[in-house]
C-alpha cells in the first residue's frame, strides 16, 4: 500500500517554479531520501507532503487520504534541521507534547515517554532542560517526540545537517535501528550523498530550476547496515551513481547560456 502518493505536483513562489511535475510514490516501510543541491525544492516537497504549504497544482495523498486530512489525523511525525524543542519544557515534557495535543491520558503519556526515551537512549535525562543537552542529544529528543504517537510516516528535513560528521554517522546508525524497531515509513531530506545511500531503500535525486526529480536510484545494500557497510565496494558504486545523477542534473542547468541566466 502506498503511504505517500505525489501526483503532478507543481509549486510556484511568485515567478519562481520551485517544483514542477513531481510524481512520487512511497510504499510502506520504505526509507526514501530526497537529495539535491540547494533550491531543488526537496524541503518544499517535504512540506507539501506535510501539508504545511499547499501545492500550486497536483495532488498529495498520505495513507490514501488527502494531505490535509492526514495532517489533522496526525498521520505523520516531523523532524526539522533544528530540534525545535520548547525550552520551557523538560525533555520528558517535550516528548509528551504531541501526546498532550492528542489528549492522551497522563498515565499513558508517561509510559510512552519512558519507552521513547529508552529508544533514543536518553534515560535519566527526563527532567533536563533542552539547553542542557548537546546538539545530537537534542535531535534525539526531537526524533523521540516525532515517533511518540507512532505515526505511520516520519518526515525528516535535514535532521542531522547541523551535526558534526562523527555524531552524524552515529545518529545514522541509531535512526536505522529506530526505523527497524518502529516499522514506520521515512522520507528523509539530506545534502549528504553518503548519508542518503547508507540509510535509504531508494534515493530520489532532484535538480533545481525548476525543481524536479531527475532520477530515482534503488539502494540494494544488504541489511542490517553496519559501520562496515560504508567500506564496501557496492556502497562506493552507489555513492558514485548518486553523485553522477546529481551532476547530470546540475550540468543540464549549466547548459543555459550565461546571458539568459543573468536575466532570469
Amino acid at each position, binding site marked *: 500500500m502506498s503511504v505517500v502518493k505525489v501526483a503532478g505536483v507543481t509549486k510556484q513562489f511568485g515567478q519562481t517554479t520551485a517544483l514542477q511535475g513531481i510524481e512520487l510514490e512511497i510504499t510502506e516501510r520504505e526509507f526514501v531520501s530526497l537529495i539535491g543541491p540547494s533550491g531543488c525544492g526537496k524541503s518544499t516537497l517535504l*512540506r507539501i507532503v506535510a501539508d504545511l504549504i499547499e501545492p500550486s497544482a497536483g495532488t498529495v495523498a498520505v495513507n490514501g487520504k488527502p494531505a490535509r486530512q492526514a495532517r489533522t*489525523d*496526525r498521520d505523520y511525525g*516531523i523532524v*526539522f534541521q533544528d530540534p525545535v524543542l520548547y525550552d520551557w519544557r523538560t525533555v520528558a515534557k517535550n516528548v509528551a*507534547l504531541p501526546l498532550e*495535543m492528542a489528549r492522551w491520558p497522563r498515565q499513558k503519556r508517561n509510559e510512552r515517554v519512558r519507552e521513547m526515551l529508552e529508544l533514543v537512549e536518553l534515560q535519566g535525562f527526563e527532567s533536563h*532542560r533542552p*539547553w542542557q543537552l548537546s546538539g545530537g542529544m537534542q535531535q534525539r529528543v526531537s526524533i523521540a517526540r516525532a515517533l511518540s504517537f507512532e505515526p505511520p510516516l516520519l518526515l525528516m528535513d535535514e535532521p542531522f545537517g547541523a551535526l558534526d560528521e562523527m555524531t552524524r554517522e552515529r545518529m545514522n546508525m541509531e535512526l536505522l535501528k529506530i526505523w527497524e524497531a518502529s516499522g514506520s515509513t521515512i522520507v528523509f531530506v539530506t545534502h549528504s550523498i553518503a548519508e542518503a545511500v547508507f540509510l535509504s531503500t531508494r534515493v530520489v535525486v532532484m535538480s533545481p530550476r525548476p525543481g524536479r526529480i531527475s532520477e530515482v536510484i534503488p539502494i540494494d545494500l544488504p541489511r542490517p547496515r553496519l559501520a562496515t557497510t560504508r567500506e564496501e565496494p557496492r556502497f562506493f558504486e552507489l555513492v558514485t551513481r548518486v553523485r553522477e545523477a546529481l551532476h547530470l542534473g546540475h550540468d543540464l542547468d549549466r547548459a543555459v547560456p550565461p546571458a539568459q541566466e543573468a536575466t532570469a
Partner: protein
Amino acid sequence: MRRATVRVALFVVVLAVLWGLWEGYRWLWIHEGWTWPFRVDDTTMPHLADIFSALWGSASPGGVGPRLITVLGKGALFTAKEAAAGFALGALVGFTLGVFLAQFRLLQRGLLPWVVASQTVPILVVAPMVVVWANPKLPSGLQDWGAVALIAAYLTFFPVTVNTIRGLQSVDRRALELMRSYAAGEWRILWKLRFPASLPYIFAALKVSATASVVGALIGELPSSIPNGLGAQIINFSQYYSTEPRGLWATNVIAAALGISFFLVIVLVEKLVVRRAPENLV
C-alpha cells in the same frame, strides 16, 4: 551560595561608591564655591547620614510625635496597597488586551494607535478627574484608594500590552509548523506555545510596570488630597523643604525603596516561573 555572597558584596560596594560620589561632589562644590548647575549646601544636598538619621527622628519639625520612619512606613504601606491593586489590574488588562490584539491582526491595526495615544494623555491632569468620576461609583471599601489604583493601572497596562503582543508574535516559524503538524487550533497554539514563549517578554514589561505602578499611585495621590499615602507626605514635606530638607529627602528614599521592592518581587517571581536557556532571556 558563593554567587549569592558575590552579589551581596557587589551591592555593598556599589552602595559605598554612590555614597562616596554624593559626599565627594558635595564637599568639592562647597569647598570650591561652585554654583553650577546649582549651589550646594545643607538644603540642596544634605549629608546622606543626616537623611537616614532623620528617619529615626520625630516626624514633625517641633520634635514631638511619632518617628518619621513610622509615619512614612504607614504611608508607604497605603501607597503600596494602591500600587499593588493597580499593578494587578493593569497587568491583567494589559495582558488580555495584548492577547486579543495579537490574535486578531485587524483589531491590532485599528486599536493599537489608540492604545499608544492613551499614554500621551498627561496623567497629572487626568488623575483628579478619575478620582471625581470613580469615587461615587466605588463601594465604600474602595473609596479613594481604589480610584488611585485605577490611575496606577493606567500607567501599568501599556508596557504589558506592547510586550505581550511582541512576545506572542515572536514565536519561531518551525515551532509553529510543529504545532500545525499536530493539527493544533489557534487557541491551543496560544496556550501551549505562544504564551510560554512570550513569558520573558511579559516579565520584561512587568518589571517596568511594577515601578511605574508605584509612580502612578504617587501621582494619583497628589491632586486627589488623599491623606494616608506617601503622596500626602511629599506635599507636606515639600512645604518645609527650605527649612527642613531632610524630611522630603527621607520621603524620597522610602518611595524609591517601595519602587525597588516592587521590582524585586517581580524578579523573584520571574526566577520561579521562567525557566529558560540563559541566552533566551529578555
